[in-house]
C-alpha cells in the first residue's frame, strides 16, 4: 500500500499558513463538549495538553511517573534550535529547514520539516513569555550556542539544563490547567492498550500503578506523546521507565510503525563501567563547541593522555571533516568513534572510548569560562567517573539515545487510525534518518504548542462517531486482554528476572543492530529474538501480585513489548538495503567508509503493519518528494 502523508502542495514557505487557513474549526463554545486523551507529559504531551485545555477542550493526561514534571524530556541538556537569526550570522527558516533535511540524510518529509523550522521561533517566544530562564548576554538579550550539523549559532539554552527548564515551563502551564479543572491528571498510571471501535481510536485501557486497578477511558480523540523506544537496547541514555508499550500496543491495534530502524547512537556518552551498569549518561553535544575529540595515533598506546605529544594524537573528526570538525553530526561522529576503536586505538577499559579534551580551550579561554559554560556537566562527569575533566580529558563512547522512527503520522500528526494522534519522539515525522542536536526539544514543543491545537480541531469538526460507553464489547474486550496479560505474567513463576532477559535482548540488539548492521547479523537477530521471547514467556519470574504497586510487573509488561518491537527494528534494518543517517548497513558504504544511500530504491518511508502474532508484518511505503532541497550526497568535509 502506498501511504499518503496528506501534505499541502504549492510553495513550501506558505504551506502551513495555507493549511491552517483551510482546515475546519470548532466553535469556542463547542470545544468544551469534546474530551481528549493525552498519554505522556513530556515536552510534547504537557505542551499539547495545556494548549488544548486553554482552547477549552476537556483533557485527561496520563503519565507513569509520580508527577508530570519528571518526564524524560527533562534530561535534555544542551539546547533548543530556532531560526531567530539573533546572531546576524545568516540563519533563516529556510536554512534551519535545509540543515534538518540534510542532517536527516534526506529521509524526512519536506513539508513537516519546513513547518518545524517555521514554528521554531514561536516556541522561543512562548517559552520566554512563560518565564523560562534562558541564558542571556550582558545587554539582556538571549544568548546562543552552536550545535552539530550547523554552521550558524541558533541554539538557545538554559545552562546544561535546557530540557528541564522547557519542561518545567510546559509543566507549569499544564498545572495551571489542572488547577482550573480543564485537565484531569493521572500520574502513576500506565496505558496498556488502545481501544479501537470500527477502525477509529476511541480510548485507552490503563493500569493504576498504585492500586493495580485496570480501567478504560473513552474520548473523542487519543494522543500519544510517550517518547522513544531506545530502552529496547537495555542500555541507553533514556530514563529507566521509558518504554515502547503505548506505541507498540497501538501498533498491534492497527497503527503503522514507521522507520523503526532509525535509531540515534549519540557520540558523547560516559563509557560503560561494568556489568552492573543500569543506564548510560549523556554528555551534552554542546561540549563539542570547546572540546576536541582524539585518540592516539598508534594502536595500543597505553600512555596517560597528557604524556602523548600532539604529533602522536589523531584528532580524527577535524582530520576527516575539516569544515565541521568536532561539530560533525551525531551519526557521523559515532561511526568515526567506533571505527577508531575497532582499529584498536580506543582508550580506557576495553579500549571502548575516545578522549574529549578541553585542555586547548582552557588554555585559550581560561578555566573560569569553561566552568561557566559547562560547570554542571563537568561535575556530573566527575561524580560518575571520579576523574576531573579540568585536568584529564573526558572519556566518551557512543550510546543509544533517541529513536527517529515511531508511529506513522500524516501532516496533521494523525496515524492511519482515525482519532489516534502521535506527537514528539513517539512519531516518526521530522528527523528522517538522523536527528540533529537541539532539535528534539524543538519538535516536541512544535507538535504540542503549535501543530496539534490546529490539526485536532480539523479532525473533530468532521463529525462525531456513534456514542459508546464502557459497556461496549470492544471496550470490555480490550480491558479483558489487559487483565489476562497481567495474570499471565504473574503466573509464569519461572527462574529468570526481567532485567536479566532485558540485558540479553539489549546486548544482541547492540551487537547486531547498533552502529553497524549487516545482512547476516540482522538475520541472526531475527532468528534469536523469538527464542528470547519464548524464554521470557516460559521462564520469567514476576513476584508479588497485580493488586498493588509492583515494579517487576510493570517492567515485565514493557519488556514483553520490546521483545516484539526489537524484532521489527531488525526487520526494517534488513529490508532497507542502503545506509542513511543512523542506519548504517556495512554492505552499503563509499570507499572512504561513509554512508551510501540508494535514492532510487529507498527514498521512502517504510511503515509496517502488524499482522498478528507469529505472522510476518507487512511493509508499506510512502514516497518522499524533494522539491525544495535537492537530493545530494551528504558531506561535512
Amino acid at each position, binding site marked *: 500500500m502506498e501511504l499518503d502523508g496528506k501534505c499541502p502542495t504549492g510553495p513550501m514557505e506558505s504551506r502551513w499558513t495555507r493549511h491552517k487557513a483551510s482546515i475546519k474549526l470548532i466553535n469556542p463554545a463547542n470545544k468544551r463538549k469534546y474530551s481528549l486523551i493525552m498519554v505522556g507529559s513530556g515536552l510534547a504531551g504537557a*505542551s499539547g495538553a*495545556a*494548549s488544548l485545555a*486553554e482552547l477549552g477542550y476537556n483533557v485527561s493526561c496520563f503519565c507513569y*511517573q*509520580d*508527577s*508530570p*514534571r*519528571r*518526564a*524524560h524530556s*527533562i534530561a535534555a541538556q544542551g539546547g533548543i534550535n530556532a531560526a*531567530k537569526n539573533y546572531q546576524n550570522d545568516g540563519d533563516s527558516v529556510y536554512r534551519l529547514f535545509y540543515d534538518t533535511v540534510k542532517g536527516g540524510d534526506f529521509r524526512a518529509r519536506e513539508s513537516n520539516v519546513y513547518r518545524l523550522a517555521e514554528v521554531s521561533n514561536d516556541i522561543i*517566544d*512562548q517559552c*520566554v*513569555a*512563560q*518565564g523560562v*530562564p534562558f541564558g*542571556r*548576554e550582558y545587554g*539582556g*538579550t538571549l544568548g546562543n550556542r552552536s550545535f552539530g550539523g550547523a554552521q550558524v549559532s541558533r541554539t538557545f539554552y*538554559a*545552562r546544561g*539544563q535546557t530540557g*528541564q527548564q522547557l519542561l518545567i515551563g510546559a509543566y*507549569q*502551564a499544564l*498545572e*495551571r490547567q*489542572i*488547577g482550573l479543572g480543564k485537565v484531569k491528571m493521572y500520574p502513576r498510571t500506565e496505558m496498556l492498550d488502545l481501544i479501537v471501535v470500527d477502525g477509529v481510536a476511541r480510548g485507552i485501557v490503563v493500569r493504576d500503578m*498504585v492500586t493495580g486497578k485496570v480501567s478504560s477511558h473513552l474520548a473523542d480523540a487519543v494522543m500519544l506523546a510517550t517518547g522513544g523506544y531506545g530502552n529496547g537496547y537495555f542500555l541507553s541514555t533514556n*530514563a*529507566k521507565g521509558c518504554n515502547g508499550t503505548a506505541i507498540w500496543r497501538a501498533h498491534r491495534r492497527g497503527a503503522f510503525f514507521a522507520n523503526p530502524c532509525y535509531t540515534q547512537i549519540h557520540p558523547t556518552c560516559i563509557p560503560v*563501567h*561494568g556489568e*552492573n*551498569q*543500569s543506564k548510560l*549518561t549523556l554528555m551534552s553535544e554542546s561540549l563539542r563547541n570547546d572540546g576536541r575529540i582524539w585518540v592516539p595515533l598508534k594502536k595500543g598506546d597505553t600512555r596517560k593522555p597528557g604524556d602523548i605529544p600532539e604529533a602522536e594524537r589523531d584528532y580524527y573528526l577535524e582530520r576527516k571533516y575539516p569544515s565541521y570538525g568536532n561539530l560533525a553530526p551525531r551519526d557521523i561522529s559515532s561511526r568515526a568513534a567506533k571505527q577508531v576503536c575497532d582499529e584498536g586505538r580506543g582508550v580506557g*577499559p576495553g579500549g571502548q572510548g575516545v578522549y574529549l579534551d578541553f585542555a586547548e580551550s582552557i588554555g585559550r579561554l581560561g578555566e573560569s569560562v569553561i566552568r561557566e559554560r559547562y560547570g554542571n556537566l563537568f*561535575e556530573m562527569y566527575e*561524580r*560518575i*567517573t*571520579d576523574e576531573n575533566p579540568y585536568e584529564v580529558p573526558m572519556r566518551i563512547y557512543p550510546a543509544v539515545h533517541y529513536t527517529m522512527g515511531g508511529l506513522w503520522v500524516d501532516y496533521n500528526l494523525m496515524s492511519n487510525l482515525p482519532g489516534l494522534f502521535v506527537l514528539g519522539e513517539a512519531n516518526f515525522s521530522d528527523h528522517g534518518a538522523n536527528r540533529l542536536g537541539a532539535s528534539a526539544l524543538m519538535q516536541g514543543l512544535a507538535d504540542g*504548542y503549535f501543530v496539534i*491545537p490546529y490539526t485536532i480541531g480539523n479532525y473533530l469538526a468532521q463529525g462525531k462517531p456513534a456514542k459508546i460507553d464502557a459497556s461496549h464489547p470492544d471496550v470490555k474486550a480490550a480491558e479483558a486482554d489487559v487483565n489476562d496479560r497481567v495474570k499471565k505474567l504473574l503466573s509464569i513463576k519461572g527462574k529468570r*528476572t526481567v*532485567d*536479566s532477559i532485558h540485558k540479553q535482548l539489549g546486548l544482541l540488539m547492540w551487537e547486531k543492530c547498533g552502529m553497524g548492521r549487516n545482512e547476516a547479523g540482522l538475520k541472526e537477530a531475527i532468528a534469536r529474538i523469538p527464542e528470547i521471547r519464548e524464554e521470557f514467556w516460559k521462564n520469567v519470574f514476576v513476584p*508479588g501480585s497485580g493488586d*498493588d*504497586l509492583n*515494579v*517487576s510487573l510493570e517492567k515485565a509488561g514493557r519488556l514483553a513489548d520490546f521483545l516484539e518491537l526489537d524484532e521489527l527494528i531488525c526487520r526494517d534494518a534488513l529490508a532497507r538495503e542502503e545506509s542513511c543517517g543512523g542506519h548504517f548497513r556495512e554492505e552499503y558504504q563509499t570507499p572512504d567508509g561513509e554512508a551510501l544511500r540508494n535514492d532510487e530504491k529507498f527514498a521512502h518511508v517504510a511503515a509496517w503493519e502488524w499482522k498478528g502474532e507469529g505472522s510476518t508484518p507487512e511493509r508499506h511505503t510512502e514516497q518522499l518528494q524533494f522539491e525544495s532541497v535537492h537530493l545530494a550526497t551528504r558531506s561535512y568535509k
Partner: protein
Amino acid sequence: MSGSKDINIKLRIWRQKGPGTKGGLVSYDVPGVSTDSSFLEMLDLVNERLMEKGDEPIAIDHDCREGICGACSLVINGVPHGPRAATTTCQLHMRSFHEGQTITVEPWMAKAFPVIKDLIVDRSAYDRIIAAGGFVSVNTGVGVDANAIPVPKENAELAMDAAACIGCGACAAACPNASAMLFVGAKVSHLGLLPQGQPERQERVLKMVEQMDAEGFGGCTNMGECEAACPKEIKLEVIARMNRDYIGAKVTKRPKGADKGGGA
C-alpha cells in the same frame, strides 16, 4: 576508572507493604559491590538477588538516573540523598562508602509525603502547590518576540539558580518541621525575579503559601537543613524572598472580586 574495587556492606532498609501498614527496618548483607556502581545500581543488585531467591524486590522511585528528574528519594544514613553534597541519590556512587559499612536507607519522612510502599512516597502535594499559582498565566501563542523582553543577565542567572529545583522533596524531608518553604521559595523566586512574573507576583505567593499550609507542611524556623540537603544547591535566600513577597502581598493585595468587571 581510578581505584575501582569490590566492597561488602550491610544494609538496613525500610520495608512497608502499603499505605497505612506498619513498616520496619530489614537487614541485608550485600557482598561484592563495585565502588564504580551507583547507589541505585547497588540496590538493583540487591533486588536481583532477592528475586533469585523468590522474594519481592525493594520498591524505590527512580527514573532518569542523571540527577535531574527528581524521582529518587532516599534518606541514606539519616541524610536525604546521602552523604555527598549537591548530589542526588542516583548520582551517588558506592565509592562514597567503605568496606564493612552499615548503611541505613529510609523513605522521605514528612506528614505531607505518605509512604506508598517501601521507599516510595506520595509527593503529589508539590504538584498541587504549583497548580495553585506556580506559573505565569500566559496562553500558547502570545506572539511577542522573545528579545522584546530584555532581562538583565544577573537576574536571569539568579532566576535560573532558583529554577534549578527538581521537586524531589529532600528539603521537606530534611526539615525538622517538614517545611516545604525552600521548594515554594524557589518557584516564587524564579518567577518573581523575571519581568514575566511581575503581574501575578502577589497573587502567586499568597496562593502557593495557602496551598502549602493546606497540605500539612510545617513552618520555617531557619534551621537550614533544607539548604544542606538540596541536591541543586538552592539557597535559603529564596525563603527570604518568599517571605518578603508574602508580607508585601498580605498588606497591599486587594481582596479578590474588588476588580471592576467590564468589557463590551
